[in-house]
């Protein structure tokens, strides 16, 4: 159907910025209008990239969690008592291989699967904090580093979609 969603959003932004905002004298109303324009810009990026971003992000999380599961298996098999206990408690949090349901084909399905995986990652992060209380275990530090690098990649994916909305509160010159 033409015009496309993206073209319609571009049209709305054009009208807002060329015909409406220049005529608005009230500062608050202009502030709201500018926010609307930025939200529309975000929507353009989101329409174009949200689905693929969610798919990529979920695959990334699944791969990292599978890698952690491998570490858990080694810790459980070859470690001392502390490592075996840690491996058991961490293993309980991880999804069993093949247990993750396939994502739905629509955006809601992709989002739901992504949130399920993010919840597992959050559980693993809480486990990491608890594991710190068991002393310095190199495998724990390694898992934390892998999770934090995953989080960096996730943040980059979100940033690509949300950057038009960024607010830093810094002065204009900074």
């Amino acid at each position, binding site marked *: 159907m033409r015009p496309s969603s993206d073209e319609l959003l571009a049209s709305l932004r054009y009208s807002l910025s060329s015909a409406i905002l220049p005529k608005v004298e009230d*500062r*608050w109303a202009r*502030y*709201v209008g500018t*926010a*609307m324009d*930025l*939200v529309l810009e*975000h929507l353009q990026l989101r329409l174009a990239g949200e689905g693929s971003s969610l798919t990529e992000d979920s695959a990334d999380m699944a791969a990292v969690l599978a890698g952690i599961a491998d570490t858990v298996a080694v810790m459980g098999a070859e470690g001392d008592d502390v490592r075996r206990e840690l491996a058991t408690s961490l293993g309980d949090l991880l999804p069993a291989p093949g247990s993750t349901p396939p994502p739905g084909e629509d955006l809601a399905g992709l989002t739901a699967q992504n*949130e399920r995986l*993010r*919840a597992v*990652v*959050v559980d693993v*992060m*809480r486990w*990491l*904090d608890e594991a*710190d209380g068991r002393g310095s275990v190199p495998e724990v530090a390694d898992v934390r580093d892998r*999770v*934090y*690098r*995953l*989080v*960096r990649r*996730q*943040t980059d994916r*979100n*940033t690509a979609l*949300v950057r038009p*909305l*960024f*607010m*830093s*509160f*810094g*002065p*204009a*010159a*900074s």
Partner: protein
Amino acid sequence: MTAATEPTGGLDAGRVGAYLRDRLAADSLEVTGLKRNVGGMSRETWFAGVAGRRGGADFTDSLTIRVDHPEGSVVPVTLEREYRTFAALTPTEVPVAEALWYEDDPELIGRAPFYVRRTVEGSASAGKLFKPGNEQMRREIGAHLAEHLARVHSLDWKAAGLGEFMAVPQTAEDCALLELAHYEEAYRAADPEPMPVVEALFSWLRRSVPHEVQRTSLVWGDVGVGNFIYRGNRVVALTDWEQAHLGDPMKDWASALWRGVDNLLPREEMFEIYERVSGLTVDEGRIEYYSVFIDAEYVCTSFPLLGEFGPDRTRDATFARLGMGVPYYCMDHGLRTIGY
């Protein structure tokens, strides 16, 4: 249509006028202007200009009304606490707008609670400050701001009564962890979607908490251009005290630098003035820690706004922008600061 009867989209000028006439003990009073402040999103800020007669003489006054958004405040701090902070600071050497009245009766102006303070003449505009040609003005304001920050951190907060309603840290770690727990609780109460990046910041802040603090001070909490009033080349009032608490003064430097005050005056020069006036020593390591803290704090106050959107409710576009633009920026910034 006069200014007093123009629709204001939130406060009724007639009711505000009647209330202020009583409070100011005026024989007659007209609201000559009632405008909502643009910027600062934690609460609504309204500027009311009034003119009237009292005791046979004409008078004018400028007042500021602070009121929660109809849906509540963005910051997990009550309006009453904010008022009490202003009231406690009013008689001290820390320059703030004079706190006048806190009200919880919705009949007075149609919204409650709210409080009134006297408007300080001057500007908070970053735009004016950063106009070309104002370089010397910026330098002098930066220096004066550093002096005021020193005064905030040197304040005898017990004598000012701030310890009566602010949590008092018992250890160096408390200086960070009490506030972290407060903001984390507010974040979790909003039941946000699972966010590994936010957990990463919380975890790092707990694991990296400073074990030393030079002095437990009043912390302004939200230091930056736009959060103070200047007149000429002098800072005449510090504003935005809603996130104030007792803790490590380096948190304010983290906030100040996060918001780019070193665009006024190089940080080394500001630190030198601050150390001379306060007797405290700037600790860059703790400033970096609190820079991440500021990121987490902004996430906690802004991200829950997204919970206000749903199939049967909505908020205006400024909240969509605030609820996404601030936290996602802070997540990225915080993660970089901790090395990821």
